[in-house]
């Protein structure tokens, strides 16, 4: 099978590699870029742990081949916080609200919620629950995660209003 050369940007950094077409984007990120924050649970699109942003859209990186991401801009969990280690609003809300226990699913949740709140900054409770339904957590019972999304949304709204006043 012919290997194919791909060029993409991952967390702002240009990456170039030659890959087998069957290499998923998830495996590319973990094994070629050594960005192991993207977790692989089911590897067939059900659990959501491998969710990353591709050109801004939240996608399952196990349901995409690296060759399909040629030319794309990818953001993984490693690119969500700031480079100096400060947590993003969503990450801080997960910590505050006990939105994680073992942490395996957390990268998928944080990446998904980051995209969700960007597109829908003022969601209803029902919309939050629907948005969370695409990622599986076996520890928390989801209540802490739900509370984290509410806190992140409220904080973003407060910051927005504060900004408007000043």
């Amino acid at each position, binding site marked *: *099978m*012919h290997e*194919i050369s791909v060029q993409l940007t991952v967390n702002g950094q240009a990456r170039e590699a030659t890959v*087998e*077409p*069957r*290499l*998923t984007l998830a*495996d590319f990120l973990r094994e070629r870029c050594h960005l192991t924050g993207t977790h692989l649970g089911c*590897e*067939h*699109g059900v659990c*959501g742990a491998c*969710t990353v942003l*591709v050109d801004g*859209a*939240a*996608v*399952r990186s*196990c*349901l*995409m*081949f690296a*060759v*399909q991401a040629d030319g794309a801009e990818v953001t993984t969990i490693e690119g969500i916080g700031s480079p100096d280690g400060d947590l993003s609003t969503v990450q801080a809300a997960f910590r505050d609200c006990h939105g994680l226990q073992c942490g395996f699913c957390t990268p998928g949740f944080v990446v*998904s919620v980051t995209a*969700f709140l960007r597109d829908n900054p003022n969601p209803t409770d029902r919309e939050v629950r*629907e*948005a969370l*339904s*695409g*990622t599986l957590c076996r520890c928390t019972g989801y209540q802490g995660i739900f509370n984290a999304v509410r806190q992140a949304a409220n904080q973003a709204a407060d910051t927005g209003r504060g900004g408007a006043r000043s």
Partner: protein
Amino acid sequence: MKPAPFEYHAPDTSADAVNLLAELGDGARVLAGGQSLIPMLALRLAVFEHLVDIGRIPELKGIERRDGRLRIGAGTTDAAVEASADVTSTVPLLTRATPFIGHFQIRSRGTLGGSIAHADPAGEYPAVALTLDASMEVVSPRGRRTIAARDFFDGLWSTSMGPDELLVGVWFPIWSGRRGFAIEEFARRHGDFAIAGATVGVELDDDDRIRRCAIGLIGLGSTPERAGAAEVELTGRPITEVEPEDIGRLAVAGLESIPADQHGSAEYRKRVGAAMVARAWYAASAEARHA
């Protein structure tokens, strides 16, 4: 890496794509959004020597009104359909059906044409296409042709397209006047394939008589189904005389190949289907009456 090895092709025009399909023959498969195909490859339920990725063909993307219909390019993502104001104003059933497809992370990649060409009887877009009598525009090295939805779905995960044909666009009729649409599904968890579901379109005249109606059934056969007998029975009747529960029972009465699995027996699915038709009928007719 879980899928078996394959050769990857990424043409940038539909013409190149169908020439490749013709040249590569049976060992080739079209890769659209990949949200159904890649899980099948990962589980090795399907193995192909060649994948022809149509995700880099710009002409396959886009939504436009043309000749009184809505044309959606086959490569348009579910997310783009969901967000389109043009879709909502012309073919609202599509807008309402889209949130039932998987989860938003799936809809980022999944495409309208991919779903229809995959032809899952429990899929939302195949059911909507059949309900609204959409037309499929397909291209092959021999040219372009149109296939009516009723002739398109010919079996489980099977369509009447030839191996060298590519679905490039789907044309949806635009209903006008006093019309209402609804989709109802029952699934154990949001985003799962429905145990059963129904789509309804209804149009009323000024005297509240049913001018036309369409009832689609999701997950109740080897293909999406239309409840043709129920539609005939309803057309011309005053909407106020119609009991949704009666329509539900009538709509599922003639079904012969209802699937059965660990999620439910055929008999159970039939009952759920009748209830979904009744609910969808109730919602669509209420909308039409107030239009």
